[in-house]
Structure formats: C-alpha cells, structure tokens
C-alpha cells in the first residue's frame, strides 16, 4: 500500500495505484453485476471484505493457508514447454512426452495432460492412431493422472471448414430454420467424433478426458458435449470426464436446444454445472468472462460470485477455469502472478472451489 492506495491492475493487466475505497466499491459493483446477470446471491459484506483484504495484501505473491489446498487440473499446461508464443509456450525443442514428464516432476501439478496443439476433436480424429500411440506410451510413465484434452469446437463443422452450411451466413439471410437445422446436424456429427476419440483413447488406458472450452459455438456446441459425455459414460465407464466451459453464458446461436427438459441457451455456470452433472461428468470447470476495461477488483469479485453459486449448486467437484482472461485473471499474454495468485486464493477461500 502507498497511503490509502493499493497496487493492483486493470482487466487488461495495466498496473494502477487504486484508492482502497475505489477497490471496495469495485468489489461491490462486480459482485452486484454477477448477482443481477445470473440471478444469484451477491457476496455478503464479510466475503467482500475478505476479498478486499486479499487484493490489498502487500506481498507480490499470495497463497492459501496449509490445509486449504485444492487439486490442480489443466488444459495442456505441460505443452507450454514445447509450444510457441501463440499458446504462451516457451518453444523448447522437445516433444510432448518429455514435456509432460518434466511438468509432472518439476512443477508438481496434481494431474497432467496431453493433447494436440490444434486442441480440437475434429483434427484429432484424422491422426487418431498417432494419438493412441502417444497416449499409450506416456501413460505408462506418468504417476499422476494423465488427461487427454481437446475442444468440442463446433465451428469447425461449418463451411468452409466443415461440411455443414454456416449458420453465420444463413442467419443474416433470415433463414432461421436452416441455421437451426445445420447446427443440429453439425452437433450430431461432433458428438460422433468426440465419442470416437474418447473410445479410441479408452482402449489405450485413458484415465481422463477433458472437454475443454465447451459451448464455444453456443448451445448446440454444449449440447454435443453433453451427449458425448452420456455415451462415453456407458462405453468408457472407467475414464473420468472433465468439462471446462467456454464462457459464463451459453450463447443461444440455436436458441431452442433443450437437454433433459432445460433450454441450454442463456444458462449461467450454476445452471451449466447441473447439465454436466446430469450427463455424467466427473469434474466441472466454470468460466467467467473478464471485462478488460474494468479493474481486477471488479472482475475478481464478479468471478468469485459466479463461482461460489456454482460450487453451492454442484454435486460434483468444481475446478474453476483460471486461464488468461478467465475468472478474474487479466487478459494479457504474460499473466501477472500477483493477479493469478490472488485469483487462486480468492476462489479457494471465498468461492470454496474443489480445484482449479
């Protein structure tokens, strides 16, 4: 602190000195925004003061207390050792397997994961035999659970990248029915691919599958993931499934898709988790968007409010998504560790998450 000001950041990572009263007000406003949008409880006064205390801690890095630790899963974190700048990677000239083993034994995560750099199910299908081989040989060497991660990414199934007519072209023409039909057909196609990949990896001993960034193309994308989970829980029952969401709000690109009697469009994290749970998912990852024009205090309060409501609604472990620009972490390539660790601490102590 300097006088009555704390050193903090904006949602785009810019460092600012902020009056403590301003930070307090931003915490209240961020929580209010989540409460209003999600129709959920805002953080109580005590939680807001706890959050303010975490923001105002003088240390560059903060942490939870002994005994409060949670499980850390990831979306290809080990691959940052060998991937390029676009993935925030360090570009080392090593393959995935040594990267995963180095990550397991030097970073000490609770789980590790693999996947391809394109990180979508559709391209995985074309190189399935390579991925089976890579997974089969790596899983013999890892002691920590090894996930295989990929994104549903329904967008790849629309023209010109895929076979189905593009709803983004049909909708401006007023062809609402055609856009909906195309999304339904594409979703069925995507589900088949996810089940194919999941079952293929299961035969190689796959311990966990991560459906990362589910719902990125809207409600049909989320629906395809839920249907794939249902099917994989029957054909691959000994494999954990984690679902990480693309955003706080399921976009209604179709608008009428229903899963188990509930319309998916417009669902917030505390509602999304119930769908994932009903489908049979083992772990759910809520994602809360970041507003880069607002302060870190505002964004974090908003994220903690959404995540806390999700944890309370959930019957399965909740691992908050805390990558760049998600759940309070500022939107910048090199994420500042002061914000990353404050996000972690706040989500554990106030949001009561089961993991990250």
């Amino acid at each position, binding site marked *: 602190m300097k006088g009555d000001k704390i050193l903090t950041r904006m949602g785009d990572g810019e460092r600012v000195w902020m009056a403590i009263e301003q930070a307090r007000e931003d915490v209240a406003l961020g929580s209010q925004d989540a409460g209003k949008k999600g129709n959920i409880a805002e953080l109580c006064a005590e939680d807001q003061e706890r959050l303010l205390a975490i923001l105002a801690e003088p240390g560059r*890095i*903060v*942490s*939870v207390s*002994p*005994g*409060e*630790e*949670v*499980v*850390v*899963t*990831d979306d290809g*974190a080990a691959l*940052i050792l060998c991937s390029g700048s676009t993935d*925030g990677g360090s570009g080392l000239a090593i393959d995935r397997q040594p990267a995963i083993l180095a*990550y*397991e*034994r030097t*970073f*000490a*995560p*609770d*789980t590790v994961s693999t996947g391809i750099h394109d990180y979508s199910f559709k391209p995985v299908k074309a190189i399935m035999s390579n991925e089976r081989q890579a997974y089969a040989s790596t*899983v*013999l*060497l*890892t*002691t*920590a*659970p*090894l996930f295989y991660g990929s994104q549903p990414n329904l967008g790849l199934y629309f023209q010109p990248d895929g076979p189905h007519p593009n709803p983004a072209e049909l909708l401006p023409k007023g062809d609402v029915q055609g856009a909906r039909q195309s999304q339904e057909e594409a979703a069925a196609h995507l589900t088949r691919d996810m089940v194919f990949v999941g079952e293929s990896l*299961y035969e*190689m*001993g*796959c*311990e*966990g599958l991560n459906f990362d960034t589910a719902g990125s193309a809207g409600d049909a994308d989320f629906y395809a993931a839920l249907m794939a989970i249902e099917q994989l829980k029957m054909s*691959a029952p*000994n*494999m*954990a499934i984690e679902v990480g969401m693309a955003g706080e709000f399921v976009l209604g690109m179709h608008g009428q898709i229903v899963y188990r009697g509930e319309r998916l469009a417009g669902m917030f994290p505390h509602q999304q988790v119930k769908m994932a749970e009903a489908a049979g998912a*083992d*772990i759910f990852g809520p994602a809360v968007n970041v507003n880069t024009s607002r302060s870190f205090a505002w964004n974090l309060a908003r994220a903690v409010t959404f995540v806390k409501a999700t944890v309370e609604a959930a*019957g*399965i*472990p909740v691992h908050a998504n*805390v*990558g*760049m620009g998600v759940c309070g*972490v500022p939107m910048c390539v090199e*994420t500042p*560790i002061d914000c*990353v*660790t404050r996000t*972690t*601490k706040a989500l554990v102590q106030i949001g009561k998450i*089961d*993991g*990250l």
Partner: protein
Amino acid sequence: MPLAHIMAAGMGGIRTSGDLVAWMQMRRKMRIAEAKRYVAKNLGIDLIDLTNEEVMYQLRQDLGIGVVTGVPGDPEGIVAKCRIAQLLGISINSVDRFVSSLSFLKGSQ
C-alpha cells in the same frame, strides 16, 4: 501461469498427495473435503500432513507409490499407479489394461 496456481493453492502432486486426492475426484466424484479425508484415512495420516513434504516423501517411498525425485529401482509410472489403485481401492483404466496384459504370467511362477 500453472506454476503460480500450483504454488498458491495446489496439493503438490507427487511431491505430496495431490495425485491421490485427484484420483478420488476423478473416480468417485468426491468434493475436495471428502477426497482429502478418504486419502488421509487410507494413508493413515492427519489431514494437515497430506501436503507436508517432510511426511509424504518418506511415506510415498515406503508405500512404493512414486516420489518426485529420481530413485533408481523404485516404483514409478504404471507400477506406482498399480499400487495407488490398490491403496485407494479404486479401478484405474491404465492399470487394469496393464495388469490384463500380464495375465500370461499367471501360474508361471
């Protein structure tokens, strides 16, 4: 970024008991408190020692469930996971498939 999360709030992976607690979330959908209690009970230690490196390193070595340092000859990888599955009373897909691939050994010893 993952390192920052791990240091701020992670269980410690194979340095301590993080992988074991993760298994219980993955295989039994246990929330964090229940998963920790289950693992501590099966290890016969206090909850607070689940993330105590001084306790867990020796215990992991004694149980043969893999440690974070390279110890030539000690179990690691799939062999450590075979022991973890037994210790936690859970079924692990990779372990089940590995064990079944060794079924030809039955009765040969």
